[in-house]
């Protein structure tokens, strides 16, 4: 039990860290901006979900794939698939937002609260 938990979390570390290294290389070696990388990772996650690789990866490495933004895309793909199975073509429109709802709502809500509570930090030139 503990051993399998430890294995999964170490795999999560390795795969999650690996995804970050790929992004770092993309930033350092190409002209990709951070925003483009986030978009790229979400789209890649949808692709992983669409070809059926996302769920097996989740059961193998857990948060290594769900915590990086790839997981957001994978969730969208899963939501779309379930919605299409349930309500047909209309699911292509409803599934994505349904699956993304919690993450988006949480980020927007906490973002708004943070804007209420905190003042902007002076920008450092580095």
């Amino acid at each position, binding site marked *: 039990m503990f051993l399998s938990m430890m294995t999964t979390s170490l795999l999560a570390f390795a795969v999650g860290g690996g995804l*970050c290294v790929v992004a*770092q290389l993309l930033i350092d070696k190409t002209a990709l901006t*951070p925003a483009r990388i986030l978009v790229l990772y979400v789209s890649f996650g949808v692709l992983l979900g669409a070809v059926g690789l996302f769920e097996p990866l989740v059961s193998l490495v857990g948060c290594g794939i769900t*915590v990086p933004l790839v997981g957001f895309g994978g969730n969208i793909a899963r939501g779309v698939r379930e919605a*299409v199975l349930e309500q047909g073509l209309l699911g292509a429109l409803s599934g994505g937002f349904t699956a993304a709802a919690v993450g988006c709502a949480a980020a927007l809500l906490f973002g708004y609260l943070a804007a209420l509570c905190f*003042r902007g930090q002076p920008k450092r030139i580095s």
Partner: protein
Amino acid sequence: MKNEPYTSRIRRHTPPSPTKKNCLFAFLIGGGICFAGQWLLYLYEALGATRDDASTLVTVTLIFLSALLTGIGVYDRIARVAGAGTLVPVTGFANAVVSPAIDTKQEGFILGVGAKIFTVAGPVILYGVLCGAVYGVLYSVILWFV
């Protein structure tokens, strides 16, 4: 003076980019966030949540922590070392939502915070949902024929 090509001449004079160091920190900190998320998942499961709910709760918790750390100015300081290590996890998405929201407070809560909060969230949500919709249409067509 030797007439070497401009680009290689520039390369000789620019300091070596610390790519290896950047990648190491990105790996350690990004991997660390995923590792912590995994144990948070086990904690929520131990508290009685289903696997799906626990996974959602991990996302919400990480987004909350990221918003808090962004608010007190700590997240950006970690990000300067971690680079992509704090960008790729969902905490980076949260940071990209919270940071413009705080910075544009002076522009008002409707067109400042309300609009700028989507600076990075907008593209991410747009392309995520767009890809999802394309997949949904293809999947419907496949279901039609199978």
